[in-house]
């Protein structure tokens, strides 16, 4: 599935929730279910530190495909990270680089994207994009 198709799926899924309680209960469930990161990957270099919550992100390139893992100390943030992984995991660096991320806004969680120091989410998306750019550079060099 393309990044856009996955985003459409998520938007449709969230449209089915009746109120914010259900949305957040789902995010809590996603956050709880996400396996997270091994301690070895919870390093400072993988840490995206906001004032409010910590997010660790780990990425690798396998056969031209980006593999992503994430963890957070806040469950709601971890739930959103799980959604981001669903969108970006197993995609090519080029697709990640060029992706237009719209689903967080559309599923009614825009406040998590506010560009403040209060959370690491904007930084998280930025970091994924950076991985895309870096891996794209590596792939082109090795071709």
């Amino acid at each position: 599935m393309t990044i856009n198709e996955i985003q459409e799926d998520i938007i449709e899924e969230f449209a089915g929730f009746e109120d914010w309680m259900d949305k957040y209960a789902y995010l809590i469930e996603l956050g709880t279910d996400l396996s997270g990161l091994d301690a070895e990957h919870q390093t400072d270099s993988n840490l995206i530190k906001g004032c409010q919550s910590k997010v660790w992100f780990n990425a690798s390139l396998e056969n031209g495909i980006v593999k992503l893992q994430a963890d957070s100390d806040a469950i709601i943030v971890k739930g959103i990270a799980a959604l981001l992984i669903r969108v970006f995991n197993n995609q090519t660096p080029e697709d990640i680089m060029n992706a237009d991320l719209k689903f967080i806004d559309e599923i009614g969680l825009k406040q998590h994207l506010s560009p403040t120091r209060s959370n690491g989410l904007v930084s998280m998306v930025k970091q994924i994009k950076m991985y895309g750019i870096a891996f794209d550079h590596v792939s082109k060099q090795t071709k």
Partner: protein
Amino acid sequence: MTLDINKIRNDFPILKELIHGKPLVYFDNAATTQKPRQVIDKLIEYYYKYNSNIHRGVHYLSNKSTDGNENARIIVQNFINAKHSHEIIFTSGATESVNLVANSFGDRYIAEGDEVIVSELEHHSNIVPWQLICERKKAVLKVLPFNDQGELMIDQLDDLITDRTKIIAVNHISNSLGTVNPIRKIIEIAHAKNVRVLVDAAQSVQHKTIDVQELDVDFLVFSGHKIYGPTGIGVLYGKEELLNEMPPWKGGGEMIQEVTFKKTTYNELPYKFEAGTPNYIDAIGLGAAIEYVQNIGIEKIDAYEHELLEYATEKLLSIEGLKIYGTAELKTSVISFLVKGIHFYDMGMLLDQMGIAVRTGTHCTEPVMQHFGIDGTVRASFSFYNTKEEIDVLYNGILKVCKMFAVK
């Protein structure tokens, strides 16, 4: 001695707003307070009718603005009982006031090897300016610790002070824990050893009566926006003789007496420290805010807020797994807490969905969080416009979040 809360709430238009479709419950008063109509109207009146740059204009409007600004200075002077109105310097806020003292006092009095003492309870704004001046002057920053209740360990102060100590910077009330610090005692100990004291009253002027002469405090700072006034305006009080000895910090505007390329002479107090066009409209707004608070009465406000604190403390502590950080005997209306197994960010986000505004995170007091070995807390801070019913809404909100996280 009781307050007419309904009447008071009517003075604050924002309290009628709906947030996510729910009535706003505003419990982030330690970060900033809401503004009464009396303050908003005063700002509008001045912008509509009298706005003009102050001090040097010869025309009616300039005189009107100048009068408003200087009248606000006198309101502040009387409010904290300063000896002279020129001991009141308008700044952009408590942070700028601390920076002014750190730089100007620091330049004049702090030399290599000297010492500055701050408390472990301080807000970053009363740590970093001192760190900067200590770095610049090769001086030493020392820390007065607090105990697990969140009370300063005053008995250590005597030993901490040496003959190299120049100043102690301490807050009156902790923004993250609500502890009321024994500033009178601190000032006494410091003065017995000829050490100056700066008190950060950003969290106290809106709750406690302050008399700078009675306290004999050397410097006192606070912000307008935390006492129901506008943002971008603050106060530095300093003893006349100290302020006179200190060099200007920023140059330009009314702080100048005469300029030649060889030498510039500086204006007298308070203008020496008010460079550029001052924020006169907001100073006037601050004056209106102080008058508003004075009309209600600080003692009445304090007593009612204490009632809210006690009610909320008892209610919240009945929630299983909830721990309050900061259990000092003397506290203002601040409750910093965590519920076991629930991250403060998650709690804050979910309460927000219920229309409840609380603060989460470190509250810009990272050393306080480090003391407790936590990354942050949820902080509910109450004002006299809050009600017990709103505390019930918070209590039920927390229970709802606990249920969502299935905390047993």
